[in-house]
């Protein structure tokens, strides 16, 4: 995971959202809740996927930091930060 580029992270997150969340044409700056009915359950599933991508469990503190995320761009920023902290 740590060797992934920003572009690869974006591709992985977009693929996951299309496949698992059945999002149609997701945009990086879409409000996930407003446009894609994203809810607390989806947030938990996305965090699990991020753990898989990082091959590392997230701490409670790291999970709390995700609660303010609203867009896929913010998701990718979050993943990038977590990856950097694990190198």
């Amino acid at each position, binding site marked *: 995971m740590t060797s992934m580029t920003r572009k690869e992270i974006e591709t992985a997150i977009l693929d996951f959202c299309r496949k698992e*969340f*059945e999002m149609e044409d997701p945009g990086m700056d879409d409000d996930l809740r407003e446009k894609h*009915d994203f809810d*607390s*359950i*989806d947030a*938990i*599933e996305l965090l*699990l996927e991020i*753990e898989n991508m990082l091959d590392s*469990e997230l701490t409670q503190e790291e999970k709390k930091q995700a609660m303010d995320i609203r867009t896929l761009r913010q998701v990718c920023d979050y993943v990038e930060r977590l990856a950097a902290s694990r190198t």
Partner: protein
Amino acid sequence: MERRVVVTACSAITPIGRSREDILRHLTQGISGVKVLREDDVLTSHIHSKVFGTVDYPIEYDFIRKHRKTMGPVAYYACQVAKEALQDSGLDEAFITSGRLGVAFGSTHGSPTVQRSIYKTFFSEDKTGYSSIGAVDYLKSMVHTTAVNITKMFGITGRVISSSTACTTSSQSVGFGYEAVKFGMQDAMLCGGADEYDTTTVAVFDNLLACSTAFNATPHLTPRPFDVKRDGLVVAEGAGAVLLEEYEHARARGAVILGEIIGFSCNNNGGDLILPNIDGITETIRLGLKNAEVSAGEVDLVCAHATGTKMGDVIESQAIHRIYGNRPAVFGPKSYMGHTMGSCGVIETIIVLTLMEEGLLVPTLNLEEVDDRCAMINHVMKLRETPLRIASVQNFAFGGVNTNLIFKKWQGR
């Protein structure tokens, strides 16, 4: 305030079909829905009973992911029959979401399939998946998963009742839903129950020596309620939903009325949690009639719980005889499909409404030679036409819970 309560829609998933026409075809042609127990690589090799009331036809679900994500198999069944009942009812979205419609829906124990996967993770040597036991798994498996997945799918904001009393689950749903409408707490209630394919239930009854084992090679010949050769119950899967509605509301919108529910009772044996109890059963029959304000002599059909166990059928026959004598026709619908557990009460409600509408008595399947100890009541042995004005559906559950629902044929007013 006491109001009249009518049934204005229904839907079912049963081992003997989906539509009322298909179910009636099985009943009138004597076709069983009991099949060989499917291999599940968990318990089947240990279970002596190799028969199961099976839903073996495809069901096309078109639930979107937003709804699917919190549903285990039992909720799929529940939401499908709920969806069809609501569509069938013709109620508009404004009413459905108004708070005037509630839900009374349950299952025996949520989704055992999902619970099993949680425990697999829990007991796994590999703990990396531990954090995956999360909110979604609980929402899929919890006891009230059927009721709340229905409320979520349709935006229902009225009261929620989620009974989970094994074999009386959905008869309680119908009964408590009836009371909610009768006493003005809701104008309509979507009521029912569901239970998915599950071998743990079979294993429980198998260990209690309550399951049928003598007909493993000929599943259609069991269960055999009241028959001298009966050897136990057959576990089954299924679901059912009925829409109960306040009469004036139904009439005002021109709804098709399938029947009227006029009474309900529920009590407990107050003792042993397993053994059938003649006093408890007799009392719930008596209380149901009292609640409906009808005499025993007015009841034309008793839809018996009749699981096909050795003692249960004897006790039930004696209780029926104590109250009714041998006048009303007695029919055991589980003979056609096995015991659909949490959904049996509502499925039997739908069957009774259909038989009343058609003016038909169908025989208890596999009842060839009545056990002398069950012979004091009026068993239906042959298909025949007859007017049916009032009928009861009685169910009894582990835990000593008994219910009795009383229905009246709809005759236009």
